[in-house]
């Protein structure tokens, strides 16, 4: 047995050697290796330069103290310690969680409801799609500046004027610590719902129409059809959009940055805004070490959270 095995092994080695001999650079080129490499090279370079290099630099900088001009000094985990001792960190985490929570409660069901209603519409479905998607097409900065004028807290502000017709308000919108965050979520839902609506609409077309017909035969109402057919059929997509939304809201920056700069009185200071403040808030160069340290902590947290989420929902989504 042993002898045979040895012979076999030798034979395999021989075959490998022959194979290697056959795979000369020339054959590699003839086999399309070079063109493959050429095609993949730009992507590799771009990905390396703009994704992986910054990630590696982030890890390095989080262990350094640097103002980007003088040579950096290694400080070990000092930056992480400084971040964890910053009294603003719990505020930022709490605010980010609050934003994510509000977005989940209000922002998450809205696109689903819109998609279901739109798929029920017999006519003008594409018009509705366009209307739903339009806010996504508007550049976010433009949208925020537009909404900022809508949110004017005076009685002449757009929203306050409209609500005033119904003898409501004027409301403070961005000018109050308790109103500011819900105001941001409202704009953010409007701005981002369109993209998710399109995903749901696509998923809805994949639902077997026979299921609806069967439900209709059983005398199901629209709500019952949604609850017993649509939602179970969409659960895979729903779970993915939920984790995407949670990751997205955990990184919310644009709205608090442009609307309120984190105010009033830190009521809308989010984790990403805090990172920005560390790096750029102080005109004397900022603390890039602390900024990268908090960025890493956020990235690790989100990675772990996503993993746990996928684990926990695996059986549910691939039942």
């Amino acid at each position: 047995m042993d002898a045979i095995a040895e012979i076999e092994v030798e034979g395999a080695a021989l075959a490998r050697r022959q194979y290697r001999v056959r795979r000369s650079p020339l054959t590699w080129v003839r086999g399309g290796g070079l063109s493959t490499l050429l095609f993949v090279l730009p992507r590799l370079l771009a990905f390396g330069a703009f994704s992986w290099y910054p990630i590696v630099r982030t890890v390095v900088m989080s262990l350094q103290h640097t103002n980007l001009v003088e040579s950096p000094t290694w400080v070990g985990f000092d930056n992480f310690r400084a971040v964890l001792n910053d009294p603003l960190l719990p505020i930022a985490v709490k605010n980010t969680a609050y934003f994510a929570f509000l977005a989940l409660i209000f922002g998450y069901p809205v696109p689903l409801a819109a998609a279901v209603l739109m798929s029920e519409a017999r006519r003008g479905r594409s018009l509705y799609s366009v209307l739903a998607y339009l806010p996504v097409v508007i550049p976010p900065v433009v949208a925020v500046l537009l909404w900022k004028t809508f949110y004017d807290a005076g009685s002449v502000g757009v929203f306050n004027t409209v609500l005033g017709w119904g003898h409501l308000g004027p409301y403070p919108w961005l000018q109050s610590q308790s109103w500011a965050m819900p105001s941001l979520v409202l704009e953010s839902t409007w701005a981002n719902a369109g993209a998710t609506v399109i995903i749901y609409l696509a998923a809805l077309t994949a639902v077997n129409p026979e299921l609806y017909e069967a439900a209709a035969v059983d005398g199901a109402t629209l709500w019952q059809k949604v609850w017993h057919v649509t939602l179970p059929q969409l659960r895979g997509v729903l779970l993915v959009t939920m984790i995407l939304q949670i990751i997205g809201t955990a990184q919310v920056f644009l709205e608090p940055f442009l609307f309120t700069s984190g105010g009033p009185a830190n009521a809308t200071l989010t984790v990403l805004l805090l990172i920005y403040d560390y790096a750029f808030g102080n005109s004397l160069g900022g603390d890039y070490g602390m900024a990268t340290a908090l960025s890493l902590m956020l990235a690790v947290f989100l990675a772990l959270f996503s993993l746990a989420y996928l684990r926990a929902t695996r059986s549910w989504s691939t039942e």
Partner: protein
Amino acid sequence: MAQFEKANPSIKVKPVEYQWTAPSFAAKLAAGTLPTVFEVPFTDARTLGDNGQLADLTGGARALPYFSKYNKAVLAEGTDSKGRIIALPKGAYAQALHYNRKLFAEAGLDPNKPPKTWAQVIRDALQISQKTGKAGYVQMAKDDNTAGWILTTLVYTLGGRMEKGSGKDAVATLNNAQTVTALNMLKRMRWTDNSMGSNFDYGWSDINQAFAAGNVGMYVSGSDVYTNLVQASKVDPSIYGLAALPIAKSKNAGVLGGGTEVAVKPTVGDAEKSAALKWIDFFYERPLVTKARARQNASTLAANKQPVGVPALPLFNKKQYDLANTWIKPFINVPLGQMKPFLTDIFGQTLIPEPAASTQSVYHALDPVVEAVLTDRNANIQSLLDQANKTAQAAISSGK
């Protein structure tokens, strides 16, 4: 520029659009995209110099013929802790009260008699808001250090200070009695009188816009803001009024002053540095000290419909400043008559520089306090200030 290049044929000047902003400065410096010559606020020049982020100009600066005539306090703003000169002054301002003459008249107030005490400011603000429906008094209250800057201004006028001592050993005194008084003034205007309008998140430029749009009765900003009001917001000159800030009867009370420095990026070689100094001398400093350059400058500005004669503070001394103003008299196009309340009073006021240690961090610590007082009726001023003081002290001690 053409004149400069003609006089210095070996130097080529390439103008770039540049505004000094905190977020982009360090990144531009690191990326090497910073212009050779650029402007920085008084607040930051010294610390940037200490951090090695500005070129050492000592030798060239000392050789300037008018060097010995600089106001010592102004020169100190551009001298780092090792005594190196790292920036030269471009201009200086004092904080002032800007007011809308039209709203004053509409409210039945005399536009030629702006308030001289804070009690009058509060009273006039109430009258303006009641009679015109516009905000009587507004104040910068943004999280970008402007809220803290203006609060510090108010506290100085009441005789308070934000810190004692200098450098990392400085002691933060944000929670002093005068800060409490200033915040209570704001609280009263905001919640009792409701004379501050409905927007409480103004920064430096949007408060100017709101004023130029005619929606603001009074606000505090630098005495040289008129330039921006004209350039960026096309203010109607007839509504503009400028007064000195009300100063309390206390020996420590005074007006906060600041300014702009011109600096050179630290990575330049010797030839470029000396060219940069020549340009600074020609473009920024000579118009202040030589008649021909002053007139030339003023006539160019006036021809381009830019403001000439906006009130500033002397970089050398009052005599030189007055003399320079007589040179450019034919070109002055700002409503000097409407700025008389400021021009009459300012030179009698004590000028106090910004907090020297961790200036921006001190302001930043005060930002949320101002915001809280303006957005929360029940804000606890003392505890907010105690917290801000802790934050500021931590920043000062770590040299941030």
